[in-house]
């Protein structure tokens, strides 16, 4: 089972859109996928038409890792299940702090469903905290959406420095430009200057598209209702790159 976290310190960069669309693309290829909506706002749950509510809240999930299996809901898309958000996730840091070995807790929680899924995608809340540390240990790959701007690059460097110092050994980081607006000079220049110069920067650029915003109206992954949309096609390319990064094809062949 591969675990990919859609993560960024910044908010509003396309983490949820990325997580939902990649989860759908993976499931549509026949993988058994679990999307865990860790953001208390519950946007991913909303997009998949599932109530952002977990019986017993975050406390139950963290205290009784077996509870995770009962909290999972099937989405309307074959092969894609969701572990919904809950408003209590806003206390995740405090609740984790009460646990033994809090940084390993989320990994332990996911251990209960390791046999049920080929891929787990984590839709993470913004920020860097104890919960982030815990999900760094649960994930094998951090997928970081970046707005094409110098500030976003600066935040990425902060994250890289932090992971180099304190990150777990097996964690990889891959980033990509998201919500790129071709009409904006700053976006174009940042992409031109950066693309191909960073080892962990994926080639795919997700364009800004109003159809992406419609996900919250349609309550479905973009690629399921507008597969020809440039952003949907960009997500397909991104998924192919993520698979390459994960080396998943080889793992499946084994």
């Amino acid at each position: 089972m591969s675990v990919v976290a859609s993560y960024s310190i910044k908010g509003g960069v396309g983490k949820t859109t990325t997580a939902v669309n990649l989860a759908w693309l993976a499931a549509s290829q026949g993988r058994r996928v679990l999307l865990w909506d860790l953001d208390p706002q519950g946007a991913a749950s909303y997009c998949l038409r599932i109530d952002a509510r977990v019986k017993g809240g975050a406390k139950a999930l963290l205290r009784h890792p077996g509870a995770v299996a009962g909290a999972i809901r099937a989405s309307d898309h074959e092969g894609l299940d969701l572990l919904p958000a809950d408003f209590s996730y806003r206390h995740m840091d405090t609740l984790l702090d009460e646990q033994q070995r809090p940084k390993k807790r989320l990994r332990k929680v996911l251990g209960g469903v390791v046999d049920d899924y080929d891929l787990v995608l984590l839709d993470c809340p913004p920020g860097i905290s104890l919960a982030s540390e815990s999900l760094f240990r649960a994930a094998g790959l951090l997928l970081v959406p970046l707005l094409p701007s110098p500030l976003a690059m600066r935040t990425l460097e902060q994250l890289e420095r932090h992971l180099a110092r304190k990150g777990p050994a097996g964690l990889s980081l891959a980033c990509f430009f998201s919500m790129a607006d071709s009409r904006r000079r700053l976006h174009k220049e940042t992409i031109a200057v950066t693309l191909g110069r960073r080892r962990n920067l994926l080639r795919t650029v997700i364009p800004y598209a109003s159809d992406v915003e419609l996900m919250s109206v349609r309550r479905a992954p973009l690629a399921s209702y507008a597969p020809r949309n440039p952003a949907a096609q960009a997500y397909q390319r991104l998924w192919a790159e993520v698979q390459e990064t994960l080396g998943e094809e080889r793992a499946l062949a084994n």
Partner: protein
Amino acid sequence: MVCLPLDVAVTHLAGQLWPSRPWEAHGPTRARRDWLDTFDWRLLRRGLRLEYQDTAAGARLQLSGEPANPAPLEVRCTATPRFCDNLPSAALRRRLCGVLEVRALLARRSLQGRLTELRLLDTSGKIRVRVELWRLPRGKACLARVLRLRGFDKDARRVRRRLNARAGGRALDADPLFEGHASLVPPPGAYPGWKLSGLCPHARTDDAMRQLLAHYRGIMDLNVAGMLEATDSEFLHDFRVGLRRTRALLRRVPGVFAEARLRPFHADQRWLSSITGAVRDADVHALVFPSYVGALDEREARALAPLLAHVQRQRGEAHERLREQLGAARFARRWQAWARFLDTPPPRGSRQPQARAPVRSSAVRALRKAASRVSREGRRIDSRSPPEAYHELRKSCKNLRYLIDAFQECIDLPVLDRCVRRLKKLQEVLGEHQDLDVHRAALLNLAAELSRQGGLDAQARAALERLVAELGSRSAAARQRFASEFRGFREVRLHKTLAGA
């Protein structure tokens, strides 16, 4: 599964199941469900059910019946998997590979029909329950099945209850794909074993031999179709085992049938043995070589990929040749002639020296000879003996085993059980030694052939040398174990015990 009246209307049914909620109907579309299992029912014997569903929404596999996992495991796929390696998910492979081993998955039963899916929606438009309606062709039945959606079990239970109670339906004990038409499905274990029970010790030898040979022919016949389709290498394997058992009986229990009558059949059996032998070798190479290569490190294994592809190609060509040969009139004609010979009652006044003797005495005599032959050949073997000596001994051991299997019931001596236990161990050592030796030679031959064609680079040749050396050391280890296993066999003293029987 619920069996509904044939004239049930989809909209009417939806209204009855949960009137206050909106339902969506999708379909009908053509759909198929296949029950997959091996020809010897390996999954069913372990209580497992593997179903392949091909619907408009795509194909998927569903594994159920695992005691540790009450919820079925569902995986999407693109085609019916044939072997364990073709299973589309690592989770399925992990669960099934140990059970399937080299056996092929076959569609043991199929249900085809038109499928309509009913979806119960909530206020946000989320699907909460899915119900499949199967209409089988020619008005056979209309079956409804509530699908499991994780996290929505309560709604599914409610719909299932109403489906049973209010739709005028009849709950079936089980899914008809698997058990509803039991008569169509052969019972587990229907594939017969090689041992024939009920052989009377006082029966005439020619009668008993005909019974045994007809039993072997019956099993071989069960394997002919699978052998032609090349679905599973075990069909060919079992056919060849039957052939060897047949030849062992005819050679080791002589003086029962007129030699002139048997001569054409001996020729047929030699022919069958030779045309199937090369194919069996190709099967074994295709089955075993990947595991040898898989044990190397990743770089070496990659370098030897062309060799494995070549082995698979050779296997395909060998099966194609076999199909042509077995498809020709000669096989059908001679196979029928053998059946006619076995069906004809032996002449009551046969002049053959052993024909009228009680089968027990003929069997004891044959077993004594076979046992002393094994002892004689084994005693001659030492650490310097050529591989051919081990091979000859292995063949003699096989013949002895075949005779014991054939006559154990009518001789009925405890020494035979002890002998079989020891013989199995000896055969394991001999088999391992010979297989490794033969595979080493085959690998070198294949490598030489590929090198001539420019298909192997220096890295592949180096990897191959390492592999061949590894097989050589394993073969030497098997050789060292031979002496103790042979000693164990001789301690049984079968030859002497049978002298007083």
